[in-house]
């Protein structure tokens, strides 16, 4: 009960009831929604989950990573490769996936933090490692090289091997998103979370008052990488194909950053709100662009929307919404 107490401590009961209702709605959603609605909801939960993972690094600890595709790609490729070559199921494979991504995160993080790279410099280091890995995978036969790695599409539900239809994947990603939300809440309330915020605001001052800066940053990057690897595993088994060009693409890394930035960096609900806004806009623009028959028009709408949001709500949509509706979660 101690854990539950820590989770709900200081949260107004109105907010708890709303959350409970929201979760209940998500649990019954597959029974109500059609195929299309479910696929959109799956996308939202996926981006909310990876957004949460990325937010730990940037929103909490203040380290800008633009190379998170590295962890998702490694995770996906390792789990899918083990399944493809040796028939090892993803529930076992994910341990290898998480281990590899955490190790990669630790290497990137250690090199960056050890040499006190910050801001853009650190971001470029993360991009460089991700791009480096992309090109290496392009030339690595075991994972199919640039031709890609394909899993056999199988519609019979098999929880043990994560094979089945959208409903299965929906509940898995829902569990991940809920788990990430709870984990982030616990982290933020912990001593470690306070240390992260101190580092984010002023790393030198934090160091001066005795915060173990390097260790805290390392923990942030490893947790974030491990969580992102799980998203990669889920993604690989959901889509059944992997290409280095997309798995490690900078575009993918950027996609991961959008939901938390648009939603509200450093907040618990930011990644969720951001994922709803961005996925919703994406779907609307897809429909809208059907009328035009101009290549790139969807992305033009999308770019305009991003531009408008960042110009008028630079701190994100959620802090503004929370203010309007009287939920007082501020950016910590």
């Amino acid at each position, binding site marked *: 009960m101690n854990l539950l107490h820590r989770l709900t401590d200081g949260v107004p009961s109105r907010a708890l009831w709303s959350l409970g209702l929201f979760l209940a709605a998500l649990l019954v959603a597959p029974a109500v929604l059609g195929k299309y609605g479910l696929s959109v909801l799956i996308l939202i939960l996926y981006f909310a989950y990876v957004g949460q993972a990325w937010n730990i690094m940037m929103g909490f600890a203040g380290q800008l990573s633009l190379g998170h595709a590295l962890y998702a790609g490694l995770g996906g490729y390792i789990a899918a490769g083990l399944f493809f070559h040796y028939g090892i199921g993803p529930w076992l494979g994910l341990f290898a996936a998480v281990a590899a991504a955490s190790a990669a995160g630790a290497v990137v993080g250690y*090199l960056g933090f050890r040499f006190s790279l910050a801001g853009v410099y650190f971001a*470029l280091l993360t991009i460089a490692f991700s791009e480096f890995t992309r090109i290496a995978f392009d030339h690595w036969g075991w994972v199919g090289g640039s031709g890609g790695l394909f899993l056999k599409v199988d519609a019979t539900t098999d929880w043990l091997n994560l094979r089945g239809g959208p409903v299965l994947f929906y509940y898995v990603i829902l569990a991940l998103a809920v788990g990430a939300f709870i984990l982030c809440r616990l982290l933020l309330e912990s001593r470690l979370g306070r240390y992260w915020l101190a580092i984010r605001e002023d790393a030198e001052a934090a160091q001066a008052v005795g915060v173990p800066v390097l260790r805290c940053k390392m923990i942030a990057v490893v947790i974030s990488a491990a969580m992102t690897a799980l998203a990669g595993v889920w993604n690989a088994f959901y889509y059944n194909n992997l290409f280095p060009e997309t798995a490690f693409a900078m575009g993918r890394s950027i996609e991961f950053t959008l939901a938390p930035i648009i939603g509200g960096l450093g907040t618990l609900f930011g990644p969720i709100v951001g994922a709803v806004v961005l996925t919703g806009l994406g779907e609307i623009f897809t429909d809208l662009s059907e009328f035009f028959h101009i290549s790139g028009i969807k*992305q033009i709408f*999308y770019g305009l929307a991003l531009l408008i949001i*960042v*110009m008028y709500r630079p701190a994100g949509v959620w802090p503004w919404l929370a203010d309007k509706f009287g939920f007082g979660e501020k950016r910590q």
Partner: protein
Amino acid sequence: MTSDFLLSLAQAITKGLLTGMVYGLMALGLSVIFGVMRVVNFAHGELMVVGMYLAWMGFEYLQVSPMLSLPLIAVLFFGAGYALQRAVISPFIGRPEHQQFLLLLAIAILLVNACLAIAGPDSRGVQMESQFDSYELGPLVFDAVRLHAALVAVAIAGLLWLFFTRTRIGKSIRAAADNHMGALVVGLDVKRLYAFTFGVGAACVGAAGALMITIIPVTPFLAAEYTLLAFVIVIVGGLGSMTGALLGGLLIGVSEAVAGLLLQPSLKSMVSFGILILVLLLRPQGLLGKNSQ
């Protein structure tokens, strides 16, 4: 080590040096903007691609050689960069990096997809007669277009150097970069200087685009690659250092050409990223950068 191999190596290095000068000019734009405003232009490669498309259009529809349309493109880019800074980017100066990143990302998405919408996804190149010309120096052969592009790039870099060291406005910009508060105190119109700087940076990359189209054809998908390439070059050379950007351009140009010769061509950017990682770890301020970030 046959002499054949040595010759092709020397050939690759010259080719890399020439392309590297154009790379350097492109990166110079990024470096100038960052050095003065501390804003990282994540839309840099997109600007480059827009420049390439404009030069291609001039050639395709008006039969104007890219070398002739270059000054016009540079002026156009200066104006566009000036306006963009004034209207959109200015409030974001001094804001957290992730907000600047998102803003310029949005601009990048708009630019590259506008190119896609207008010119389509096919690769567009210019076919000039001079593309078959070459100069010979002993056993070495220089492509004429590459050599011309490199010479023009160096000339523009020289003009830029004159601008920053000899003109009043150039000196004011450097003053504002060195000491923002001090510049305000002595009464410089820093906002206008910033807009001017973004204009100059954009003009550099626009000119580089006009030169690049004579060397390789353009597709919208090149944009992200050029953004990354420009970053690699300025970090290797030293963010904010003009000579650093040129040196970085030469280094990356040569490393790409040599890697394309010794390894598979698809591995060439792996070498660039390898160099970037090494520089970031061993000398994060870049080869010619000043010590503090």
